């Protein structure tokens, strides 16, 4: 059972995000970069499947050099090999272009399953998984919280929560799964794992290595354009509901929820 996990590096969720002077990007100077949390579920699930069914886990990342750190973290967790797609021409590309480059890096590999996160916690787009499945012409199973691979390794049964119910889907392999929170509890990269990860293979590929044309990438080739980034509205001060008795307060609260917050 060979599994590929795609991973993205994103700002740590605790990072204070500042919008740049161009109003279209964020200031990256003091950002702490981490593996996208949804991708971590993918890494963990791949490792569990490998532990059960054998095979190899390959991690594919895309972005600048610093992304190697997240790939190495996945290797330290137990993945076997890493590929970093890195090319100056990728700067400013959109998710569709990213999926195209990842597809090119994966298409000649042997794989039964591909994991991506259901979305990146930075742009919150959730496009790469679907686009990648399309490019590779394999089924996509999105927002998955449970994965069972058949004994013969030829099919997979997965669960997706929907509105309090559970949708159970079976699919032939190879297939692509986008991981949702709840799939598992990712392990830590153990210290011995970190030391071993230094010796695991990590290949770096440029667009040319993948047989791709730089002109199809970068800001100029974007299909999705960012017009402007704005910070979320500042949180307003809380309100204390007046009233002498609990009844009075409840009535006041209901009125406020109806008239002001407009949620009732």
């Amino acid at each position, binding site marked *: 059972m060979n599994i590929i996990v795609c991973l993205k590096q994103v700002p740590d969720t605790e990072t204070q995000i500042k919008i740049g002077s161009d109003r279209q990007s964020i200031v990256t100077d003091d950002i702490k970069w981490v593996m996208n949390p949804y991708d971590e579920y993918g890494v963990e699930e791949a490792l569990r499947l490998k532990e059960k069914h054998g095979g190899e886990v390959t991690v594919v990342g895309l972005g600048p050099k610093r992304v190697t750190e997240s790939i190495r973290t996945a290797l*330290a967790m137990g993945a076997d090999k890493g590929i970093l797609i890195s090319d100056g021409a990728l700067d400013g590309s959109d998710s569709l272009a990213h999926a195209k480059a990842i597809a090119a890096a994966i298409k000649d590999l042997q794989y039964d399953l591909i994991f991506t996160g259901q979305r990146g916690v930075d742009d919150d787009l959730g496009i790469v998984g679907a686009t990648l499945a399309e490019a590779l012409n394999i089924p996509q199973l999105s927002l998955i919280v449970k994965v069972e691979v058949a004994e013969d390794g030829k099919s997979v049964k997965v669960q997706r929560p929907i509105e309090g119910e559970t949708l159970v889907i079976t699919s032939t392999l190879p297939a692509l799964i986008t991981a949702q929170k709840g799939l598992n509890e990712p392990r*830590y*990269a*153990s*210290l*011995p*794992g*970190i030391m071993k990860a*230094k010796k695991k293979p990590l290949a770096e590929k440029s667009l040319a290595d993948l047989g791709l044309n730089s002109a199809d990438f970068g800001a100029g080739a974007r299909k999705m354009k960012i017009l402007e980034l704005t910070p979320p509205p500042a949180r307003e001060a809380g309100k204390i509901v007046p009233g002498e008795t609990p009844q009075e307060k409840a009535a006041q609260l209901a009125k406020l929820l109806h008239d002001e917050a407009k949620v009732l």
Partner: protein
Amino acid sequence: MEGFQEYFGETHHMVRETVRRFVEREIRPFVDEWEEQGEFPRNLYAKAGVAGILGIGYPEAYGGSDGDIFVKIAAAEELMRCGSGGVAAGLGSLDIGIPPIIALGDDDQKSRFIPPVLRGEKISALGITEPDAGSDVANIRTRAVRKNDHYVVNGSKMFITSGVRANQLTCAVRTGGEGYGGISLLVIESDTPGYSVSKTLKKMGWWASDTAQIFFEDCRVPATNLLGNEGQGFYGIMENFQNERLQLSVMANMTARMALEESLKYARERKAFNRPLSGFQVTRHKLADMATLVEASQEFTYRVAARIGTGKTQIKEISMAKNFACMVSDRVTYDAVQIHGGFGYMREYLVERLYRDNRILSIGGGTQEIMKEIISKIIL
């Protein structure tokens, strides 16, 4: 590399991340409760062992994962972020208990005494201090008398970190005559008849750490537990001090750093006279001083650590680094409580604990005065 020498690289960041997560998941949610209870669960050792945190810097052959000195520092810094010096000290007692075994022990002793501790199955502690001898290590009185293939040990050890629960004590005993030449190191297991332990001692800080007094009454310890030769103990103890002092410097720096961070947050949020505290120049300048001290101390410690990491002896420098770091953390934790006002005196605020936990740092591992003795002997 960015054109200058950085102490921390990719591996260190990954280690930091692992320890950070460990702390977030396994310690932070419970730490206040443990502090009040005066103890953390014993299985935390096993959890830290599985994550490989206990084995950092020890040979792979004994279940550790080799790594340079900054791997250890990165891990220690993140562990301190749990906000309890007691948890860090308790979990870290192996880092004073094991190094003498590495330095003086034979292969058999290393195989017996190291792997179970790095796996977190057994707890290791160090016993040097006695009720009547602390700074004056050369004057310890606990006696070990050789009888055939055993040592019969009588005496007592005081203020032993992890002493209540330790399974094995790396212990300084007197096998020979007066003075430092008569001191040896024995590993004494807690299930040896004649070994007993006091209740957890009640302390100003480090509440979550089980500090105890240990008693030996005709405690028969196999002679095969002697580390190195008779009389080599003092050397082993002094060697170990360099590494303990580095750990304490790192603890002091992190204590100060956290106190600074809490103060920065608080100064932005808390209002007085219609403006945030950070609106007062006195407060801003105080914070600037605190930040400057923390930065300088941390850099100095790193520099000394880098030299220790290449095998250089840094007796004077590490004594300076420890004193400087403690001076800074004394001042910074004091100021942090001041900035927090009455809230800083309340247990719900981290600075209250930092202030208490800090106090031991200039006493343990050699007092401030002993550090000055060492420095002055070398420079004069």
